[in-house]
């Protein structure tokens, strides 16, 4: 039970206000406002990462792809973009790539490499070729020359067919036989009296006569069949002659037109070869160009200016430009940021059209992906998004390994495709991939994907903070000024910059560091700019920055306030005054999203005779994490190595975080737990106006913990809500003094002597402050001075051991009574 008392004069004063918040002095920054500063481009304190990025951007080896790791808002994207854009200007402009029809194997379109900017030129050339031929070829086939030759072929074929039939008809007539037509074909019948013989008349004939007629009819039937069987062969020959005529006629005009186009590409054997294939195909399919001969020539767009190349029937002569530098703004390698790195977006896709209910495709429906656009340059991807897209990571690795971009749809990869598809020529790939992610993702990739290390040899690790030197402070101020200028924010006074940098120190959790979370600082600046403009000012003041920080805390502080309210209303029992045995205020940090705050917890200890067991109730109910359990076990080690070394440890102790209904992790409360335990053993009450944070080792040394500012402020807020007595404060590890960047109101309270932050190095130092009694050092006679905390603890432990021995020696019916406190 806590007992209240008057102000305790034996309490140490704690750290001075100056050490609680080591602020940056505006006058030392060397400027009045950011308008005086020359904005600098680039990054501060990221030399290690910049070197990796530059190396990846400039080295020729194909496997030196880069993984950029760092926290959100560290300026990774900006840094990568800036550095790659710089390096891109030193690399040659990459070539253009097009897909054209493969006339021999249409489902395997050919890829052709062209000099930069030439792809649209070739496409236009082919469009013009089609338009020209669509006018030239019909005119050619309408000429007298063609018509005459065509008629000659038709006449020759007709005569070759008619001649034997005419001869047969003559022969039939001479042999007195009639040629009859039936629905199934021709039939021969003997003629009697100028008419085909009737069945009755035939039956009345002499057998010899019938046989003669039958033989004649059979012979003529066979003869007619032979003549008619010649038809298909004659038609085939005729067709071949017509095709040859078409080819000969078409070749004249096609060759001239194609050659005119080919002359522009004499140095490119791939284009020359393609144009030769185009020439052959057009010549052999000249009739394709004759379909427009009946078109109306009197409309607003007469035949001569009709865009024939847009008609679907001419698609095979099109040129599908996959990537072209024709419209590039500068002569440099491309730097492509792909925000949605799905498989299709990455490697390109083959689209389909619905025709008569069926999906069809052709090479003009091949669409480029980010790898095509970045070919010859750099491709920047978000690692997490990439890994979240099905098959995208695998496809990227395949492309990097094979150094070629193969377009294979997801349906084909899974063998789910049920319609026709294409197998385009893979396009050679020379791209440097930069993945931006976090360190955990990088570690997972290294561990789980053996190919990752082979393909991504470089790692750019962005620093979270930089040393707080005068030079770095000045440089960060220049970066802040550059950001303000770039974002059109108000000019900032030196005090405003100093306030912002103070916040940077706070974010770094270290008074000797400045955070590099430029995104978070930028958010504060924009909000402060808003308040400044709202107040009608054009210059941002320190108050604007502080107000922005304060309001951001307020907006995120709903849970924090609820918890404080629970303590103030004694729903959660926390004493901030008086003394209590076996009870101490521990401190923990709770993170809600990006917001963290501290809250006190009551830690209690109970001891009794036992077999040397220290029970961590949190662990027993599986609410304690492994590190917390480790801390508790260290306590056991401390007790057994410091006290009553010559007797068995006969203690049964239990430790608990009171009113803790969630998990407890971390060892920052281990010192507080030990203090509670020592209090319980010694029976000396602990000051409840103090809270403790810090971990402890087996030698009793207090070790550094995280979140010290939030913890102190959390306890301060509770004390302040209940009234600051002047006897309140927090014990922190001395090694955490450099991390102090407390809120201004805490600093003011300390300055006024209403609150104190006391650094401690050891358990003895801490227990003396908490109990107001000397800890006691073991003397030469191996005992602690009488009346000291340690002596009381040791006496209690010895008493436990003694009673335990007595208990063991006593008859079964006489049980010893062990003390519990």
């Amino acid at each position, binding site marked *: 039970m806590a007992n209240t008392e008057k102000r305790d004069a034996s309490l140490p004063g704690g750290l001075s206000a100056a050490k609680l918040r080591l602020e940056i002095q505006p006058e030392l920054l060397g400027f009045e406002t950011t308008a005086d500063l020359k904005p600098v481009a680039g990054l501060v304190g990221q030399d290690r990462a910049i070197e990796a990025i530059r190396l990846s951007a400039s080295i020729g080896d194909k496997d030196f792809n880069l993984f950029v790791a760092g926290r959100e808002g560290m300026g990774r994207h900006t840094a990568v973009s800036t550095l790659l854009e710089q390096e891109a200007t030193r690399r040659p402009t990459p070539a253009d790539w097009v897909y054209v029809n493969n006339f021999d194997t249409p489902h395997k379109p050919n890829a052709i490499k062209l000099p930069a900017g030439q792809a649209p030129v070739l496409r236009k050339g082919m469009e013009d070729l089609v338009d020209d031929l669509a006018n030239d070829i019909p005119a050619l086939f309408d000429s007298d020359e063609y018509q005459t030759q065509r*008629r000659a072929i*038709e006449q020759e074929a*007709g005569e070759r067919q008619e001649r034997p*039939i*005419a001869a047969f008809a003559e022969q039939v007539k001479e042999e007195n036989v*009639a040629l009859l037509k*039936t629905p199934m074909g021709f*039939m021969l019948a003997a003629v009697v009296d100028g008419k*085909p013989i009737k069945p009755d008349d035939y039956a009345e004939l002499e057998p010899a006569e019938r046989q003669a007629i039958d033989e004649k009819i059979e012979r003529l039937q066979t003869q007619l069949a032979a003549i008619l069987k010649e*038809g298909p062969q004659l038609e085939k020959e005729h067709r071949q002659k017509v095709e040859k005529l078409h080819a000969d006629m078409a070749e004249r005009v096609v060759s001239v037109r194609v050659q005119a186009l080919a002359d522009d590409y004499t140095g490119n054997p791939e284009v020359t070869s393609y144009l030769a294939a185009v020439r052959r195909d057009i010549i052999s399919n000249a009739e394709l160009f004759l379909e427009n001969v009946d078109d109306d020539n009197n409309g607003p767009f007469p035949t001569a200016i009709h865009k024939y190349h847009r008609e679907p029937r001419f698609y095979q002569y099109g040129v599908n430009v996959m990537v072209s530098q024709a419209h590039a703004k500068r002569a440099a390698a491309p730097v492509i940021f792909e925000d949605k790195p799905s498989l299709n977006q990455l490697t390109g896709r083959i689209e389909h059209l619905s025709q008569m209910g069926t999906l069809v495709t052709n090479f003009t429906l091949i669409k480029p992906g980010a790898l095509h656009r970045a070919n010859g340059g750099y491709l920047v991807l978000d690692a997490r998004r990439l890994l979240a897209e099905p098959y995208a990571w695998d496809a990227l690795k395949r492309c990097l390994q094979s150094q070629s971009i193969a377009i294979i749809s997801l349906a084909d990869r899974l063998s789910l495709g049920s319609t026709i598809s294409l197998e385009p020529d893979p396009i050679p790939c020379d791209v440097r991939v930069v993945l931006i992610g976090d360190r955990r993702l990088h570690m997972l990739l290294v561990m789980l994907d053996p190919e990752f290390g082979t393909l991504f040899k470089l790692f750019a690790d962005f620093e979270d903070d930089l040393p707080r030197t005068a030079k770095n402070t000045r440089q960060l101020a220049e970066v802040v000024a550059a950001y303000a200028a770039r974002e059109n924010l108000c000019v900032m006074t030196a005090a405003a910059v100093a306030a912002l940098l103070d916040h940077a120190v706070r974010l770094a959790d270290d008074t000797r560091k400045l955070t590099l979370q430029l995104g978070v600082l930028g958010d504060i600046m924009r909000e402060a700019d808003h308040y400044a403009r709202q107040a009608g000012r054009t210059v941002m003041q320190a108050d604007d920055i502080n107000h922005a920080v304060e309001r951001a805390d307020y907006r995120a502080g709903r849970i924090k306030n609820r918890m404080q309210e629970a303590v103030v209303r004694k729903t959660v029992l926390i004493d901030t005054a008086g003394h209590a045995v076996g009870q101490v205020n521990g401190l923990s940090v709770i993170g809600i999203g990006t917001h963290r705050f501290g809250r006190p917890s009551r830690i209690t200890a109970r001891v009794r005779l036992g077999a040397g067991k220290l029970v961590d109730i949190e662990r027993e109910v599986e609410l304690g994490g492994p590190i917390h359990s480790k801390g508790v076990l260290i306590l056991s080690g401390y007790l057994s190595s410091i006290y009553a070394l010559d007797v068995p440890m006969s203690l049964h102790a239990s430790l608990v975080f009171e009113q803790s209904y969630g998990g407890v992790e971390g060892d920052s409360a281990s010192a507080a737990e030990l203090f509670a335990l020592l209090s319980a053993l010694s029976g000396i009450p602990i000051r409840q106006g103090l809270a403790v944070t810090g971990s402890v080792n087996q030698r009793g040394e207090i070790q550094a913990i995280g979140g010290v500012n939030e913890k102190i402020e959390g306890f301060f807020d509770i004390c302040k809500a209940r009234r600051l007595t002047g006897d309140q404060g927090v014990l922190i590890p001395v090694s955490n003094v450099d991390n102090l960047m407390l809120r201004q109101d805490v600093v003011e309270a300390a300055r006024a002597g209403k609150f104190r932050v006391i650094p401690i190095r050891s358990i003895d130092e801490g227990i003396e402050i908490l109990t107001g009694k000397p800890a006691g050092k073991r003397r030469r006679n191996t005992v602690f001075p009488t009346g000291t905390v340690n002596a009381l603890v040791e006496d209690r432990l010895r008493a436990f051991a003694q009673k335990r021995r007595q208990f063991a020696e006593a008859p079964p019916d006489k049980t010893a009574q062990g003390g519990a406190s």
Partner: protein
Amino acid sequence: MSPGPASKMRILVSASSFADAAAAMHIAQRMTEGIARSLGGLLVDDDDTRAACAIPNRRIVSASGALLITPSPSQMHTLMNADANAFQQLLKKTADLAAVDWSFERQMGDLIDTATRVATGWDALIFGYRSSHSFAGKVIMFDPLTPDDGQLLGLSHMLASHLRADLIAFGVGPLAVQARGEEHPTKVLFDTVEDAIAALDRTNAQVVLIDLFRGPVRDAEQLKRVLAASRCPVVVLGASSLVATVEHKMHVPPPRDAGDAPSS
């Protein structure tokens, strides 16, 4: 008297099978475009063909040269019904496309006799003949022996144009006249109709056009030989003149003294 070129024609397509009718409809389709008023179809179930099929051990030679067993009478009946149905459907489709009236009739008998008898009142009669090959032949017209208003020549030109074929005129005898008001086609002169028919037998024709009223082909026998020799559809103008010739040789009622009957 045949209708002038400006008049709308009534066209009758006659055939003894659907294969023949389809070839004739190909020509009729060209003629319905602009100059037809109505379209008729006549399927003649030929007596001679049915009789020939009943003779044992006969074979049918298909268009591709295969030898087929002759159909039984019931099979023949079924085949003709199917052909009639197909013919009627094609006729209807063609007439609907040209927005003209149509009618269909089926009769038994000799093709030419039946067709010329039914053709009374029709301006043009087309005899069908199946095509045995796909080579585009010529358009052949028999130049009328007596002057006409250029209808046959105009029709021939139109078909030649539609079919993208050469037009050749067969002139018979020294009195062969030239059509007026039209560009005259290539002309081949023959002494007799028999010579012209013999030449037609050796010519690859797409369609043959004749005017029975103005010659030189005038009777059914010649018409039969023209149809056999052309091996393609034959367009006949003035078909009703054949019936008229028969009628003028008869007296209704018959004269008491047959020896005094006047001849036309």
